[in-house]
Each structure stands twice: as C-alpha cells, then as structure tokens.
C-alpha cells in the first residue's frame, strides 16, 4: 500500500497509525519512510515506538537520518518484491515527493498495489475538488502509478472541532463521487471520537494517536 498526497496532508500520521492498527489485528507489517523531501517530522521520528510494537521500519542508514539528501534505501525495492502481509510505503509530499516511485517501477511491475491519496480539505491547494484532482494528476504523472483510493484526514490538529470532521467527510465523499475513486477510510483523532456521530459515515474510521508532535508536546500513547 502506497500513501501519497499533497504536502502536509497527514500521510505520515496516517501511515504510522495504520501500521499500528494492522499490526494489532495480527498482520505482519513493514513500513518504509520514503519521504525524500521533508526535513523534519518524518516517520523516522517515531521509529522507536514503532519498533517496540514489532513493526519493521525501512529507513536510510542511521548515520544519514538527519542528512539533507534524497536517500533511497535499496531495502525498499526488496520489500516491494517480497511483500509482508501489509507493506506500507509513506511517500513525500506532492508530485515532487512521489517522483521517487517511478524509480521503483521495476520492483512494482505487475504486482498489485493500492495507492491512496490522503486529503485534508483544511490545507491549502486541496480545499476544492479541482485542487485535489490536480494533485492526483500530478502525482500519477510523476510516479507513473495510478491512485486507487482516497483517505479523508480533515483536521486542524489540536483545534479540530467535530464540525470540521463532518464537513471534511462530506467533502471527500463528494470528491469520491466525482473522481470515481473509492473512499477507503477517514482518519479522526482518537480523542475526538466520542464527540462524533459516525453512524452517518459509510466508510471505516482510523483513529489517530498523534505521534509527530513539537518538542513541547508529548506523543499520544497507543491504547
């Protein structure tokens, strides 16, 4: 499963939380940090709690972790060729971040994959259907792959209100109708779940325990 989307749409939080959820459901999970464009707040920041849960993380070599260089670990092609029960690839933002996927085309060849576009309608450039479709096209062109589904991730981090989730859900629903792409799930911060009537949602929910926090906050524990 390949996670793509525009810059800052929440790909890494979704990838980490999805990895943990699936691991707890009993699947073998491998997660690759393929973010070659972002200098801070990457999956590698959560490598310790993920490793403690038994999730296998593929990263550049330790000594290059803080390097400002686009390093693609050869292990990524290996994990695509020999997939686990769930192989998750967290890709960098926009078409620029997705370009690296084209270099993995040989590894992907003829293998079935899911490529999910994460959408946060409260981010610039993806607040409209046409904005999301434009990014979809750009990512597909850069990666030479096809997006197969959508994930809604409407949030303003700590200031998210239940109404933002509801209107965000309605937005990705309409995007799903217009694009023909299925809405795979919606990501919602765990602490907001009790305040939301999610009976109206026609897709599964991924609870988010925020991991990528600034130094003055603590990452949420996975319950």
């Amino acid at each position, binding site marked *: 499963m390949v996670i793509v989307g525009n*810059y*800052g749409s929440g790909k890494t939080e979704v990838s980490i939380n999805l990895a943990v959820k699936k691991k707890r459901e009993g699947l073998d999970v491998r997660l690759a940090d393929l973010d070659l464009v972002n*200098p*801070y*707040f990457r999956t590698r920041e959560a490598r310790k709690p993920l490793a403690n849960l038994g999730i296998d993380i593929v990263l550049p070599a330790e000594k290059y972790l*803080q390097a*400002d260089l686009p390093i693609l670990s050869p292990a990524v092609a290996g994990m695509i060729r020999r997939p686990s029960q769930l192989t998750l690839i967290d890709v960098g933002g926009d078409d620029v971040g997705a370009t690296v996927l084209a270099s993995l085309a040989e590894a992907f060849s003829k293998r079935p994959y899911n490529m999910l576009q994460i959408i*946060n309608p*409260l*981010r*610039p*450039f993806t*607040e409209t259907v046409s904005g999301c479709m434009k990014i979809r096209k750009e990512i597909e062109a850069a990666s030479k792959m096809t997006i197969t589904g959508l994930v809604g991730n409407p*949030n*303003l*981090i*700590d*200031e998210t209100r239940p109404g933002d989730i509801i209107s965000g859900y309605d937005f990705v629903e309409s995007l799903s109708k217009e694009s023909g792409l299925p809405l795979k799930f919606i990501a919602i911060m765990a602490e907001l779940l009790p305040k939301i009537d999610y009976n109206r949602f026609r897709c599964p929910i991924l609870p988010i325990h925020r991991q990528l926090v*600034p*130094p*003055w*906050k603590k990452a949420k524990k996975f319950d």
Partner: protein
Amino acid sequence: MAKVLMKGNEAIAEAAIRAGCLNYFAYPITPQSEVAEYLSRRLQEVGGVFLQGESEVAVSYMILGAASVGERVFTTSSSPGISLMSEAISYMIGDQCPAVFINIMRGGPGLGGILPSQADYLQATKSIGHGDGRMLVLAPASVQEAAEMVMLAFPLAEKYRNPVMILGDGLIGQMMEPVEFPDHLKTEPSNKNDWAVNGMDTRKSNTRNLIRSLYLEPEQLNQNNLILRAKYEQMKKEEIRYEAYNIDAKYKVLIVSYGTMSRVCRTAIDELKDDGLEVGMIRPQTVFPFPEKAVEDAASRKSCKAVISIEMSMGQMVEDVERSVKGKQPVSWYGKCGGEVPTPEEVMAEIKKLAN
C-alpha cells in the same frame, strides 16, 4: 477567513501576499524552501514576481533594486544564506531602503546542520553586516504569530526606511499549526515618493531622489549615521514588544526565552506550577529593540532569586539579559545548539537547580 492548517513557511508566504508584497526573490535552503515552493505557485495566481536568483548574494541585490524603486519586496533564507546577504543588508541600511528579510535559522557555524537553532541572534540583533547598521528584529513563537509578524514587518520597514528581519528557528518554518489570516493590508508604501527612485512623474519638486550609502565627506557620513542612530532610538521607544507569562505569580525564577524555545519553557512552567514551584517568563517578541525594562522589572520582583536565559545557542541572548538585569540578580544560561530542542524535562531540571 476560516482557519487553515499550514506549515510556518507556507503561512509566512501567504502572509506576505496579504501584506501586499508581490515581489519575492530567493534562493532555496533547508529549512525554509517551502516558502519558495509555495510562492512559485501563488505569486503567479496574484500577478506577482517570483525570481530564483543564482545565489543569495544575487538575491540580496535584487531586493535592494526593487526596494530602491519603492516596491514592497522580501526574501527568506536560512543562516548560511543570510550571511551571504549581510553585505547587501548593510548597504540597504545605509541607503535607507525598506525590505523584509526572513531567517529560518538552522544550526551553525559554517554549514552546520538542517535542524532548528537560534544561533544567529547576535548577528541579527547586533550587527548584520559592516558599519553601524541595526535592523528591527521580530521573533515569532507560533505559526499564527509568524503570519502576523510578516504583515507587521512591511509597514515597519517602510516607517523606518530600514530592513526588518523576522528571526524564526527551523521549527517555526517546519511545524504545522492552524492559522487565521488577518484582512489584507490595503496600504501602499506611503512615503515612497519622498525617497524612491521611481521616476520624476510623481515628484512635487524638480529635485531627483538619490539612493546611496557612499559619503566621502566625513561630515556627511557622520550625518547619515546620526540619522540612522535616531531611527534606532525611535525603535527603542516605539517598537518594543514582549509577552509576559505567569508574571503575576510569586515566582522564584525568571526565564527569558523566545521563539519555539519559549513554547518548551511554557510547558515546563505549567508542569512546575503543578509541583508547587512558580516560574515567570518574559518572551521578547522584538529581540532588537530588546525589552530591557520588562526584563529588569520582572527580575526586580521581591520573590525572584535568579534569572535564566534559555535559548538554542551557546549563550547569545544571555548578554542582553545580563545587560537588562543590571546585576540585580544572578543571570545564567541554558541551551543546546546541535539541532536538538531541549525538552520540557531538561528545562525543568535546570530551573530546579536554580530554585534550590
């Protein structure tokens, strides 16, 4: 306008457009390259000019060119890039040209690293280039404040006909927070016809405007420096900004901290309060001019026994803190500057040492 979720760098870029600045020249460097990324799209939509120069040196002189004809103009860079621009900034101070320079600091010296730092404090506040130049320096602690300070920086630069710097650490550029933009600034640089070299059409008299920093006559050069000095003195009177935190409590220790470092200190202060130890904080929002009196007054409180400057550098702002406290309290320093931000626990441990 409703809140949106933005990276600091994106919010800075959008705020500049809303401040009526449609000229952005820059050269990419981590951790601020998203500003250029964002504006390369957005400036097209609003009819602005985005130019990537061949180096920071080139960019800084493009800024001088645009500023000298009275255009609102800005750039963003990070520490090594700002060093390269420092010559042109000195010229702009001497020329009395307004512009906004944004430094999203990374660790140094030299190439250093790409992680957050506050180690350009002395460079920004004491002497950005050669000569007697000063800039007004604003230091945001959140994405919202970064956006607001960008919108404030342009009118301030024009008021003083002097470069204004926004001094943010790497985290300010990279972190995401909800942000709400104030309304567009509708103002044009109001005094530009008095000094800009924008042609004779707008002139009231027949005299030409001249922009220069070269004064071969010693009296004239001294005179230019006296004009500049008067502006710095006016900044000290009119532009000091700071936030006081937990200042009404009977605190034993006073922290002085700015930027994202102050957010860590805030968490530490809240947690120490729960443990029964009161700590106050002055957070300079302008680091030049420095809120000397606020720091002095806060340090002079009866309950206060010690003052500490907490910064992501090896001890730079502490010199301003010592100067402000005037020997009334012992002043110490705590910080790191490899890119690792001190944690609330580390700050708490330092405060406890001082309180005992």
